[in-house]
C-alpha cells in the first residue's frame, strides 16, 4: 500500500521548501522537493549598474548574503579583467569566513538541534508534538543550554563581519578587488579577539555536541543516502602561501 507524506513548511531553513514523499511498505519510493518562492533575481540585474549586483544579490538570502556579494564581485572581476591582489583576496575571504561561522552555528543549533533536543518551555515556538527524541535528560539539558549559548556566538560572528563589512546581514565591505575599505590595526585585533571566543565555543561545545548526537542517532547514517554526486566550486582554496584551507573545486 502506498502512502504519501507532505511536509510544508519545512521549518528551520532560510526560505521555503516542501518535501513530498511516497512510501510503500515503510520504504521511500519517491521524493520531490519544491522551493516555493520565486523572485527572479537574474532578471532584476538586467539594465542595472553592474556594481549594484554586489549589493542587490545579497538580498537573495539573509543567512548567507555575503556569499552572494563574493560571487558577484568575482563575476565582475572576471568581466572587467581585474586581477585581485593576494591581500584583497584574503580580506574578502575573511569576511566570507565570518559568514560561514555565523551560518554554521545557526544551522547547527537553531535549525538542526530542535530535531534532536527538547527545548525548554519558555516559548511556544519550542513546542513540538512529534519527534524522535532519544537523548538522556542530562545530555538533552546540556544541549538545550548550548542552543541558547550559541545565539551569542553566531551574533559575535556577524559582529566580526561588521567590523570591516559595515553591517550584517547584507554587508558593504565586499567589492571588486576584494574589499571596499582596508581595515586598520584596531579593527583586525578586534576581529581576532572575537574569533578567539567563537573558536573556544566551537571546539569545546559545538563539535562535541555534533558527535554526541551522531552517537545516539547512528542509524541515521544509513537512511536516505543520495546518489553521492556532489559538486564544489571550492572555497578558501589554493592560496599562494597557505595552500587550500577548506576545499578545492571538485566533482
Amino acid at each position, binding site marked *: 500500500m502506498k502512502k504519501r507524506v*507532505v511536509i*510544508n*513548511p519545512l*521549518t*528551520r*531553513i*532560510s*526560505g*521555503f521548501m*516542501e518535501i513530498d514523499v511516497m512510501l510503500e511498505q515503510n520504504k521511500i519510493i519517491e521524493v520531490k522537493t519544491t522551493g*516555493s*518562492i*520565486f*523572485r*527572479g533575481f537574474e*532578471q*532584476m540585474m*538586467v539594465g*542595472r*549598474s553592474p556594481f*549594484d549586483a554586489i*549589493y*542587490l544579490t*545579497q*538580498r*537573495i*538570502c*539573509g*543567512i548567507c*548574503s555575503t556569499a552572494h556579494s563574493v560571487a558577484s564581485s568575482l563575476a565582475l572581476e572576471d568581466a572587467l579583467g581585474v586581477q585581485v591582489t593576494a591581500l584583497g583576496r584574503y580580506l574578502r575571504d575573511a569576511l566570507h569566513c565570518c559568514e560561514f561561522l555565523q551560518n554554521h552555528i*545557526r544551522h547547527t543549533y*537553531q*535549525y538542526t538541534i530542535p530535531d534532536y533536543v527538547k*527545548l525548554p518551555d*519558555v516559548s*511556544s*515556538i519550542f*513546542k*513540538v*508534538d*512529534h519527534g524522535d527524541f532519544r537523548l538522556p535528560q542530562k545530555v538533552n539539558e546540556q544541549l538545550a543550554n548550548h542552543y541558547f549559548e550559541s*545565539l551569542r556566538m*553566531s*551574533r559575535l560572528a*556577524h*559582529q566580526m563581519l*561588521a*567590523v570591516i563589512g*559595515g*553591517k550584517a*546581514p*547584507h*554587508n*558593504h*565591505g565586499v*567589492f571588486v578587488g576584494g574589499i*571596499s*575599505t*582596508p581595515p586598520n590595526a584596531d579593527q583586525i585585533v*578586534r576581529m581576532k579577539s572575537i574569533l578567539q571566543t567563537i573558536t573556544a565555543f566551537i571546539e569545546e561545545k559545538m563539535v562535541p555536541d555534533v558527535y554526541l548526537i551522531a552517537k545516539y542517532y547512528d542509524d541515521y547514517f544509513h537512511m536516505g543516502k543520495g546518489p553521492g554526486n556532489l559538486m564544489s566550486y571550492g572555497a578558501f582554496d589554493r592560496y599562494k602561501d597557505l595552500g587550500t584551507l577548506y576545499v578545492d573545486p571538485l566533482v
Partner: protein
Amino acid sequence: MIDPHHVLPPEDMSNEAIVRRLTEQANVRIQNGQLKKKKLVWLELTGCSGNIISLMNGFNPNLEYMLTLMVDLVYSNSLMAAEGEEAIERLMSVLDEEFILAVEGAVATKNNGLYNVIGRWRGKPFTALQAAKMLGEKASHVIAVGACAVDGGPSAAKPNLAECVGLSDIVKRPMIKLPGCPCHPDWFLGTLAHLLMNGVPELDNMDRPLLFYSTLIHDRCPRRPFFDKGIFAKTLGEPTCLFKLGCRGPVTRVDCPTRKWDGYVNWPIGASTCIGCSQFGFPDKMGPFISYDITRE
C-alpha cells in the same frame, strides 16, 4: 531554586547578569501565572528571511530576552520546532486570540500568490498572499519589518516578475513601518517594547516611529565636515565624503550613524556608500549604489 529577587553580594552588575536576573524573575512570575506574555507571530513572506537573522543579531535586548521575557513567539518559519501541518495549525490557532503580527518580506501577488507558498493548509497550498490577509486582519497590531514588507523592497525590484507589493497594499489598516534592509534589531525590539509598555509609538506621516527614523543620515554622518568643505572621495576606502560616489545618506532618514550595527561596531558608511536601504523606493529609486562617473574634474 534560589529566589531570584535576592541578589547576594558581590552583585554581578554586568549587562548579562542583569538580563539573566530579570529573565529569571519574569520566568518565576510567568510560571506563577502572574504575568501573561502577549503573543507574537513572525511571518516570513516573499523575501530573504534576513530580518529574522538580523533580529538574532540584537545585543541588548537580544533574541533570548525577547523570547523569554517580552513576548510568546508562536510562529516563526526560521525558528519553530514544529513543521508541516502542525506548524500551520499553530498559526491558525492564534487567529482566535490576541496577537501582535510582525511581517517580513513582500507579498507576491502573481497567479493568486502562487509565487510564494509558505505552507500547506488542509492539503492546499497556503500562499504569502493568503497569510498576509488572514493574519493581517485579525492582529491587534501589525509591524511591517524591513524594506520588502514596507513597500516591496528588493523583492519588488524591476521587472518584479512575482508582482510583489508591500504589506499595506494588501492589508488596509494602520500599521507600523520599519524600513531597512534588513531592519536593525533595535528598531524592531524598541518598537515592540514601546508597544508592550506604552502602546503605538509616535509615527511620522509615513508610519515610521520617530524614535528611530527622525534624522537624516547626512546630518549625523561623521564624514559631514568633508562634505561641507567640498572634499569628496574618488574611490571607496578614502576617509572623505562619499557623495560623489553615489552616497544616499542625504536622502535616507534613520539613526544608522549614531546607532551602528551588530553590537554597535560599524555601519555601512564605515565601509562604503549608503545605498538608501531604509528609504522608501529602495532599491530601484536608490541605484546606482556606486557611481564612478558622475564627477569629472
